């Protein structure tokens, strides 16, 4: 989200889900939308039904690519290049929104000079997208009355992830496609409460509602609310914690409902890191790979056994309601944390219900201050919603950006951290698929989902398969500099030549044994979406 914060001043989906239906052009990149956000795909296809152009730019031609009006396959990690290319065409053809650019943004001249180098022919070389297609996409998006951009992890999980997002923001601003209905730059959140985890300050640099820990005034506010002294320096990200644990500089960790042993890149490194800790607590619903390494395992509950709120990808705060009693002696996670806080000798941790906790959240979080349990019984409220009579905010940045003027950033294309070479001549990209979710903790324990896809697989392009004599369902070896796994081949044109895809949900054949932990320098997101591998018959 760092990219959107830099460009606009706020890092969430700019528009709301229903608005897609009225867009005239929707540009989707790095999102396998029908499989991973089906109900958003629904709105996009409804827009298409009404005449909107759907453009998909993705290294994998997934279902949404098949359904698109224009599909282009870019080389892995070449996003800044083709985005600069689009902007170049749009500026030189005079299709940009002069009024918006001069009134609401800064940095246009620099951007114009920067993108001038990215001619369609040069783009074709770097990204593999034909020059003619670049022009066609530029025209469709720039000339649309309302153009929406949709992206997901395919854009962010690169060392240039922040650059990619800022480039998307550039494209939207240059064409005036932000701050009004059915436009915007819209990151789709993969898990049901990613938005909420960010909003509530489960980040090393901010308290709730993106209030910076380094800001003395804001910190003083929280000190007063909690009655404790607080630290004013930014904390460690998950990747930094893992590295520090690995180097013996972190003594303990508390992991709530996450399974870094499957979700983090370079799993072998993660295992060493976690084993190196003096003390590891894992709170989860199943004995995950991470829980097995713990000193203490605390049984939390599923969503079905707890009350609370969840914030979806378009900033709507919704209720989760307790349907059944906790299984066995398990306890809802909020209750475990409240009890632990009390045991650690803190007086203001005695909450009786999630609503108790939520009232405290409202009091310290301006963007949530007007969203109460009571109101969301009857209303759909998107944050920011600062007061009890505020209607909530469907789309952000109307009239002015959170940061004032929108920042057009001049950015150069950089290669992915690891390019193919003689030893590892192919490229791996990873992701999710329809039938499973994240590390499979829930879906692999759901018979109907397990039945659809029981084990890991690797997608191989037919030409590559033919060259190596690989046949459908054959178990093959995939190796990177970090490790080696085996998986069954699925031969398909979804992936291009020289590229293989592996979903990351499975312990056996775990894609993240192979992935590269190289980080985006700003967002600290690892480059899951590209690394060099070799693929061999066993």
């Amino acid at each position, binding site marked *: 989200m760092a990219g959107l914060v830099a460009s606009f001043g706020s890092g969430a989906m700019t528009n709301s889900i229903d608005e897609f239906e009225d867009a005239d052009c929707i540009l989707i990149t790095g999102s396998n939308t029908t499989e991973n956000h089906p109900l958003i795909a629904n709105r996009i296809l409804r827009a298409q039904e009404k005449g909107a152009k759907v453009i998909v730019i993705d290294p994998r031609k997934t279902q949404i690519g098949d359904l698109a009006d224009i599909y282009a396959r870019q080389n892995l990690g070449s996003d800044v290049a083709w985005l600069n290319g689009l902007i170049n065409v749009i500026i030189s053809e005079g299709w940009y929104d002069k009024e918006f650019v001069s009134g609401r943004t800064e940095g246009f001249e620099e951007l114009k000079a920067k993108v001038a180098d990215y001619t369609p022919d040069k783009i074709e070389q770097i990204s593999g997208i034909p020059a003619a297609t670049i022009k066609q996409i530029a025209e469709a998006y720039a000339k649309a009355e309302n153009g929406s951009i949709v992206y997901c992890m395919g854009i962010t999980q690169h060392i240039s992830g922040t650059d990619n997002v800022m480039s998307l923001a550039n494209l939207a601003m240059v064409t005036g496609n932000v701050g009004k209905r059915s436009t915007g730059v819209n990151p789709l959140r993969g898990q049901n409460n990613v938005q909420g985890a960010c909003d509530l300050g489960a980040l090393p640099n901010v308290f709730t509602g993106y209030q910076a820990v380094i800001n003395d005034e804001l910190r003083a506010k*929280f000190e007063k609310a909690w009655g404790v002294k607080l630290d004013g320096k930014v904390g460690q990200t998950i990747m930094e914690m893992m590295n520090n644990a690995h180097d013996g500089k972190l003594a303990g960790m508390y992991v709530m409902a996450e399974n870094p042993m499957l979700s983090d890149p370079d799993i072998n490194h993660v295992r060493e890191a976690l084993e190196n800790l003096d003390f590891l607590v894992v709170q989860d619903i199943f004995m995950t790979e991470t829980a097995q390494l713990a000193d203490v395992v605390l049984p939390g509950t599923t969503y079905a056994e707890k009350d609370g709120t969840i914030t979806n990808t378009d900033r709507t705060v919704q209720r989760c309601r307790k349907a059944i009693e906790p299984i066995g002696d398990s306890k809802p996670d909020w209750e475990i944390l409240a009890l632990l806080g009390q045991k650690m000798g803190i007086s203001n941790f005695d909450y009786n219900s999630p609503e108790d906790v939520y009232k405290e959240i409202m009091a310290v979080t301006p963007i949530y201050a007007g969203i109460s349990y009571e109101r969301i019984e009857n209303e759909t409220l998107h944050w920011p919603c600062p007061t009890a009579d505020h209607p909530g905010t469907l789309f952000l940045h109307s009239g002015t950006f959170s940061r004032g003027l929108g920042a057009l950033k001049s950015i150069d294309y950089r290669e992915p951290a690891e390019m193919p070479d003689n030893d590892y001549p192919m490229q791996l990209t990873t992701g999710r698929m329809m039938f499973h979710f994240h590390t499979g903790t829930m879906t692999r324990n759901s018979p109907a989902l397990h039945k659809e896809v029981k084990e890991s697989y690797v997608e191989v392009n037919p030409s590559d398969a033919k060259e190596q004599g690989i046949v459908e369902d054959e178990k093959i070896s995939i190796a990177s500099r970090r490790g080696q796994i085996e998986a069954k081949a699925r031969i398909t044109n979804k992936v291009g030549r020289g590229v293989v895809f592996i979903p990351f949900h499975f312990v056996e054949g775990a894609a993240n044994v192979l992935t590269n932990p190289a980080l985006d320098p700003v967002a600290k997101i690892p480059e899951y979406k590209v690394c060099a591998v070799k693929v061999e018959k066993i």
Partner: protein
Amino acid sequence: MNCDFVLTTCPYCGCGCNFYLQVIDGKAVGVVPCKTHPVSKGTLCIKGWNAHQFVHDEKRLTKPLIKKSGRFEEVSWDEALDYTAKRMLEIKEKTGPDSFGFLSSAKCTNEENYLLMKLSRGVMGTNNVDHCARL
């Protein structure tokens, strides 16, 4: 016999579909899409339709566990939480707040994320709190 329909939010992707968990005598037996919900409008994907299935899985953790000489042993909540609190405070004392880290979860509620964040910052005294969503 009791048969209830409890409106809740899907635990999977960020679309935020709502559905009813059908509960018969305390057991979640099925999912009924909510027809009046603004996002899902009576539809769901395959994950939402089957969101009740893992809830009663027999592999669910039901007791707090402490690893004693390499093996997990079932303990009471009091013992587990006392021990956890003691070890955490020891680390804070010995190597400082920043030698401890918290991983929160995009699968938990807002309230739970808030409490973990507060535990990290307000109780342990460290800003080392993050979640796996950047991943």
